[in-house]
């Protein structure tokens, strides 16, 4: 059964077993539009939403979730019968997540990183861990695209565990996958692109787009990853994206002009490749380039 599935998928897509990360540096450049359009322009794709603080990919498919799984992390608790109130846990916690009042130990779970130090150091073994949810993964199916979404629960500080769990779950899928990554260049973006086979950066030719693209290219360079660049709204702004791309040896793979029609359809939740011929053409070109560069 598994082999049949794999064979079908391999025949359907222009490339096989590729994990393609779509990232951007600057937010709002059209990353999710490119990810959704790319997924819609080939068959048997797994679309993965790794922008777990603001997961929007499913909105562009108009999909409703079919299944949800919790993402949990270990959090400490105390057995009050065994606690002597010595205070070692509070003294050694580097995150200020443990406080001891008399013989009462209080954990601030929102500050806790789940490192396990307090449990290890407790001289009477009074601290134990329980799994607590920090987010969830949702599974959707829509128009032949399977979608897996990571979703950080509001009030949680750290998106990285949800990104890592979502990527672990995505690994069970055999075939091509498109990952919608978080904006920026900090730890969450790095966690999202780290396991990808190819990276596409979406930018715009404004001074903001150019500055943030350069930061993203620097991160990828540091990680030893190559990127191709999509210039969205290529007629709105004069920044020299081409010069920047050639300095970082990142080919420009597609250019998409601004379209009021695309912007307003996006606002109502439609992926551009559903109706816009320029986007459809650009996505075909992208798949072909990815195939050529990753034989």
């Amino acid at each position, binding site marked *: 059964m598994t082999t049949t599935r794999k064979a079908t998928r391999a025949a359907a897509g222009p490339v096989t077993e590729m994990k393609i990360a779509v990232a951007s540096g600057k*937010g709002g450049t059209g990353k999710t539009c490119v990810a959704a359009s790319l997924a819609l322009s080939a068959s048997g794709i797994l679309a993965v939403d790794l922008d777990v*603080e603001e997961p*929007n990919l499913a909105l562009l498919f108009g999909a409703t979730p079919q299944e949800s799984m919790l993402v949990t992390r270990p959090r400490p608790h105390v057995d009050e019968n065994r606690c002597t109130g010595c205070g070692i846990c509070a003294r050694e916690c580097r995150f200020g997540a443990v406080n001891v009042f008399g013989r009462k130990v209080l954990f601030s779970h929102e500050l806790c*990183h789940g490192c396990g130090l307090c449990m*290890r150091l407790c001289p009477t073994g009074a601290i134990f861990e329980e799994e607590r949810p920090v987010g969830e993964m949702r599974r959707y199916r829509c128009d032949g695209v399977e979608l897996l979404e990571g979703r950080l629960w509001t009030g949680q*500080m750290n998106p990285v565990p949800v990104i890592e769990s979502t990527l672990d779950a995505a690994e069970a899928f055999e075939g091509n996958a498109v990952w919608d990554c978080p904006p920026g260049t900090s*730890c969450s973006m790095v966690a999202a692109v780290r396991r990808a086979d190819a990276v596409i950066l979406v930018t715009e030719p404004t001074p903001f787009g150019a500055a943030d693209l350069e930061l993203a290219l620097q991160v990828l360079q540091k990680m030893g990853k190559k990127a191709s660049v999509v210039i969205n709204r290529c007629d*709105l702004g004069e920044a020299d994206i081409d010069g920047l791309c050639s300095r970082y040896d990142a080919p420009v793979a597609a250019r998409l002009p601004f379209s009021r029609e695309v912007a307003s359809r996006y606002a109502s939740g439609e992926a551009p490749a559903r109706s816009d011929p320029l986007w459809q053409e650009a996505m075909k070109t992208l798949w072909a380039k990815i195939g050529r560069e990753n034989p």
Partner: protein
Amino acid sequence: MTTREIVVVSGKGGTGKTTVTASLVALLAGQGLFCDADVDAPNLELLLGPTPLRDDPFHGMPVALVDPDACVSGGLCARECRFSAVAMVEGKAVVDSDACEGCGLCVHRCPVRAIRLTDVVKGRLLESRTPYGPLFHGRLFPGAANSGKLVQQIKDNARSRAREETLPWIIVDGPPGIGCPALSAMSGADLVLIVTEASRSAQSDLRRLVETARPFRHPLAVVLNKAGLAPDEEDNLRRFCAETDLPLLGTIPFDRAIAAAQAEKIPPLERIREPLEAIFRNVVRLLDRNPERG
């Protein structure tokens, strides 16, 4: 005199956070100081043309460092690290300082005490002069963690300066998202101004941001940017604001000219002076209603 702090955030990126912030900066020239708290995509500074005055190293949480001569290659540190930050390379433990969260577990567990915590420079803390007033900003090194801590230090520096110089306004350009840097940026604000657009994506992100911020009792208000692209979605947004008691302080129409103004690197206030002045009047009115906060 009290200083009032407005933090501009958005949830979703690209809704026009920096455009609104830059316009507030232009309106308040000479009356305040300004922070760029979007430390891994700092864009406000591009509009304000800063002249650097101070450039200090930013230290994140201290991270683990292994003395390779003392390491006896037991591998306990690599096995027990919850963040996969320690790897055994040619028989010696090596720490990935970007993945290390600085918990110190390996320091305690190492049987030969070959590991200690050490300060690592993770970015820069900057202070600049601009034609509008002082700018406090920062730069997180690519791929680094602890952006929440950097945001907090930028804001601490700005607040102590505002106290010294008795400046009435602090305007903060915040990061996107709802995680630690966004929470850090919003903390202690007199007003959290959320810039949104009418798209379904932006509304979903707005809901999550409101859900995140409400437990902290931050006063929240909304500005609708890029108005006119999706009238039905705008109705949904207005309904949501009314139902959740979220003041909608104004709208900025969608306009190609605003993008063009940014391409010339000038604060786009001139293009959108009227709606922005109305928004600012509403901000002041709202703050005057809650004078005791802060």
